[in-house]
């Protein structure tokens, strides 16, 4: 479709520098915390210090008399104003056919608090300091209850129960796959490999903490919320319709520059509703800026699974069936996508890049006294990949097979696409063998034994690990998603406004918070319409400006939004051809559009894009009888399938035998992202994603204290964020196959680094320690954990 266009220096495939950089580099970004509104007030939340407690009286008198305090609001005030609970965007169904348990989630706690950080009151004052002082003296009577933070404990019969309507703390007992087929395959298998593992809980920690500013204009009965969101239209929909009951046309939600998201900002949070409600109630603008340590106990967390997995194999190492059982932590309430992540975004990924014919996965979603758990970069897919890629290494070890050979034996070959897996999804394209072979070559896998020997001479353990993976992204075909429990569509929208001068404004329903959309989408417009990127501006993040959109998450912006943009451009081109045909007295079918020029095919009769744009607005020579003037088109696109990026990641590590410190010495990623719009930006997405996955593998751990229910890793003092010195220079390249169903052949690349890397790094660590008989190490592979594992292994048969 695009192959016949002349090379465009700012079109698809060009590593042009980012259009958005200048404002960020000069300190002119416009983040929510930077915002000042006339008469603006400041809000502070009072949060529960207890993991689980009955909520008694809240004495606000001392707080109210602090000078400058305007209001001290509680759950009772919300209830009196008939403010609704925070809704969940997905309703999954259990294996018994019953809907998940979906307890009420009041924006300020009512009756009980269910995690450390659960908001119980909101103080608004003339200054932030006055609000903080007042928050310090709000007296809350708590009757502390026993709490439970770990899923294994939460499903025990004697566990404290969070919600009466969810006995056993069970939100949903869910399954996917053919249990009978799997059981039959296991019964006849030559070998069964088993693995128990934990997928550690993470805090996403985008560098910009969350923030919200709300304002009410009584003259127009208009409410505006500025919020750090990845999906302003969805916030408008959820908050307006379900929580505050503000008609959509009276509510504007703006997500201006947002400093990273990674999923953390793709939920409708209680704070957004409370700030907006308070602003309407007070008739004053209200600003809330989350402090980092407050974010640790109020941003939705990620991961937190406990899993048992078994692979049935024949004697040649062929996978016959996979059985997975997972306990997934939901936290104290259901967050927007919470129940969808460990189920629909997890089980379908368990096929991986392999031909395993039968798979069954059961997932128990469990309430605990912890911060709600939801999507974090990768969301379900890193968890599935970690299970599968660790288990494949265990299979190889137990059968005495080479780790590459067992993968090759089971891998889907490039000629097998489209490939229907036993867990719902149908892969449209890919070449995992090609990705793996290229990665093996770059990483010099064959030369590893010599490097291991050299390291041994230096007294360090060295290991190499691979993760060959696939993900499903480009969320999502609405019909499938709604069948699986989505309470909304997952299409995307784009509008292209061609100005009379031929300059273009494109309005996108997706949201850029680091991904470089202002550049990438401009490149697509440049490619399609033949205008230079300098002549294209991309607008997003404002429900008053942009028609509609589901936002940015699930590696969907380029895939779904980009396809909508491509389709809108096609409509512009079609209309332009009609205008040009009229002007050049040709049949529409004879007018072609190439490189920014409308031409009567086979002739030298042309009209430039600028000429057609002008005549659309100055319709002197224009087919008004059949066409409206103006040149602006919009497209909504609902994808027909998920997209399936994938690849092969290889990590090499060295381990200090004395301290257990793991040093990552090499990292190679070869990924299939489909069509690349901007290679520079794709590499940047991979870099960032990989390091987030390395962080999970090596150091990040949102640890809770089992007794008190306190989040122990509650600040950057204890929660280890990857730093620059943790990484070697990564080698990242692509090995692309075209997506068959997106307009441009794109697959998306936002999450793949985070999906491929934890297993690659952990497999390398286990490989380094394999000489000690170690077969698995849980994440994060902290020095203490490695030291303990080495100690245990070195004790001669201590456990026997």
């Amino acid at each position, binding site marked *: 479709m695009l192959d016949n266009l002349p090379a465009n220096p700012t079109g698809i495939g060009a590593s042009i520098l980012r259009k958005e950089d200048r404002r960020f580099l000069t300190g002119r970004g416009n983040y929510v915390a930077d915002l000042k509104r006339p008469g603006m007030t400041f809000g502070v939340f009072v949060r529960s210090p207890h993991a689980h407690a009955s909520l008694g009286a809240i004495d606000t008198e001392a707080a109210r008399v602090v000078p400058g305090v305007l209001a001290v609001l509680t759950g009772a005030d919300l209830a009196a104003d008939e403010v609704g609970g925070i809704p969940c965007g997905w309703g999954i169904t259990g294996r018994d056919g019953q809907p998940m348990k979906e307890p009420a989630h009041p924006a300020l706690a009512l009756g009980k608090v269910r995690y450390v950080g659960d908001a119980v009151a909101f103080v608004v004052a003339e200054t932030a*300091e006055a609000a*903080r*002082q007042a928050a*310090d003296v709000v007296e809350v009577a708590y009757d502390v209850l026993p709490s439970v933070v770990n899923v294994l404990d939460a499903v025990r019969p004697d566990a404290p129960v969070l919600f009466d309507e969810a006995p056993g703390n069970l939100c949903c007992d869910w399954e996917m796959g053919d249990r009978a087929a799997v059981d039959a395959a296991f019964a006849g298998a030559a070998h069964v490999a088993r693995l128990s593992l934990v997928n550690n809980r993470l805090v996403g920690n985008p560098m910009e903490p969350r923030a919200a500013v709300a304002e009410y204009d009584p003259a127009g009965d208009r409410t505006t919320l500025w919020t750090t969101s990845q999906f302003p239209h969805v916030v408008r929909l959820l908050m307006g319709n379900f929580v505050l009951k503000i008609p959509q046309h009276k509510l504007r939600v703006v997500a201006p520059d947002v400093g990273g998201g990674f999923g953390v900002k793709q939920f409708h949070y209680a704070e957004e509703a409370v700030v907006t409600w308070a602003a309407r109630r007070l008739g004053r603008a209200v600003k809330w800026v989350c402090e980092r*340590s407050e974010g640790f106990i109020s941003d939705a967390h990620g991961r937190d699974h406990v899993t048992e997995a078994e692979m049935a194999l024949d004697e040649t190492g062929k996978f016959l069936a996979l059985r997975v059982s997972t306990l997934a932590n939901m936290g104290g309430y259901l967050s927007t996508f919470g129940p969808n992540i460990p189920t629909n975004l997890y089980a379908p990924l368990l096929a991986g890049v392999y031909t395993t014919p039968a798979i069954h996965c059961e997932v128990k979603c469990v309430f605990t006294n912890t911060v709600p758990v939801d999507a974090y970069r990768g969301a379900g897919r890193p968890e599935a990949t970690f299970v599968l890629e660790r288990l494949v290494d265990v299979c190889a070890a137990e059968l005495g097979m080479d780790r590459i050979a067992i993968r090759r034996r089971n891998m889907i070959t490039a000629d097998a696409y489209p490939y229907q897996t036993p867990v719902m999804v149908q892969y449209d394209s890919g070449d995992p063998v090609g990705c793996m072979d290229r990665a093996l070559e770059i990483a010099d896998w064959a030369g590893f034994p010599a490097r291991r020997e050299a390291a041994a001479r230096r007294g360090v353990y060295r290991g190499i690990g691979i993760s060959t993976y696939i993900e499903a992204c480009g969320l999502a075909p609405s019909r499938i998603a709604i069948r699986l429990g989505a309470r909304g569509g997952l299409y995307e929208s784009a509008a292209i406004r061609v100005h009379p001068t031929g300059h273009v404004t494109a309005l996108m329903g997706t949201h850029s918070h680091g991904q470089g959309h202002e550049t990438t989408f401009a490149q697509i417009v440049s490619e399609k319409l033949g205008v230079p990127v300098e002549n294209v501006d991309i607008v997003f993040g404002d429900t008053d400006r942009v028609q509609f959109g589901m936002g940015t998450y699930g590696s969907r912006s380029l895939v779904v939004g980009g396809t909508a943009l491509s389709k809108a451009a096609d409509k512009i081109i079609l209309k332009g051809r009609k205008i040009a045909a009229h002007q050049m007295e040709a049949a529409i079918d004879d007018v072609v559009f190439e490189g920014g020029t409308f031409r009567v095919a086979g002739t030298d009769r042309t009209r430039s894009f600028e000429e057609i744009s002008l005549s659309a607005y100055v319709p002197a020579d224009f087919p008004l009888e059949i066409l409206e003037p103006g040149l602006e088109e919009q497209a909504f696109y609902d994808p027909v399938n998920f997209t399936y990026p994938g690849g092969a990641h290889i990590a090499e590590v060295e381990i200090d035998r*004395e*301290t257990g410190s793991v040093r990552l010495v090499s990292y190679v990623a070869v990924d299939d992202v489909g069509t690349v719009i901007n290679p520079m930006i794709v590499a940047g997405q991979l870099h960032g994603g990989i390091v987030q996955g390395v962080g999970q593998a090596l*150091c990040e*751990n949102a*640890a809770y204290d089992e007794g008190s229910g306190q989040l*122990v*890793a509650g600040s*950057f*003092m*204890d*929660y*280890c*964020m990857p730093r620059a010195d943790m990484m070697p220079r990564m080698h990242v390249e692509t090995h692309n196959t075209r997506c068959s169903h997106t307009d441009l052949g794109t697959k998306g690349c936002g999450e793949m680094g985070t999906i491929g890397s934890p297993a690659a790094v952990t497999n390398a660590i286990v490989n380094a320690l394999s000489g000690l008989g170690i077969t698995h190490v849980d994440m994060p592979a*902290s*020095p*203490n954990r490695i*030291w*303990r594992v080495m100690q245990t292994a070195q004790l001669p048969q201590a456990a026997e």
Partner: protein
Amino acid sequence: MQPFTFRRPADLSEASALLAAEGAVALGGGMSLLPVLKQRLAAHAMLVDLSRLPPLQGISATDGVLYVGAGTTHADVAASPVVAGTIPALAALAGGIGDPQVRNRGTLGGVLANADPAADYPAAVLALGAEVVTDRRAIPADAFFRGLFLTALEPGEIITGVRFPVPAAAGYAKFRSPASRYAIVGVFVARGAGGVRVAVTGAASSVFRVPQMERALDAAFTRDALAGLTVPPEGLNGDIHAEPSFRAHLVGVMARRAVAAALA
């Protein structure tokens, strides 16, 4: 932060007078005090900024003693040719505190007055047998550190500098918290006129010496002299990054690495 009064005295006597007031506290670089105030874990009526007091500045070496003014930043200690020429292990230690921006603000006096159990300097002060000089007296290192965030300083007493005897050899090795970058275990080893001293920070509620290691190193100042030596885990700190037994193990490892650094 809760409101307070900020004062920047012109000289030591004014500083001393200000600090005599109820609720007054000394401010050095602020790298320990301000985070505590920001998190509302403490409140003070007055902060007395000592960071620019002239008597607290300066680095000099005379007669086998290195003097470092209490107001000297870690960055200045790390970059000082005088320190490098006398006790290079001290320069290396200072260059490894926190991060570059912390080193640009944090001061020697501030660290010692705070006596954080995971701070680096206390290990050097104790192992080198230094004297903490105040506006009132000189306090030997062995008497200075009294426990978790506790020192021998009297109310209002101001650290003006530290006198470090220049050792024949010294080395510092630290196992850092991957998150905070504070020492999980830091061991400073110094071989001076009075023999070898080994001081450990990060592992317990306060910096401490390890006599058993000192005796072993007195006998032979080699890495191998410490083979198999460590400290018992009882009473050591434990957290999500290092359980007490791991810290005990690390004391041995870091001590050996400190000796190796001293011999390098």
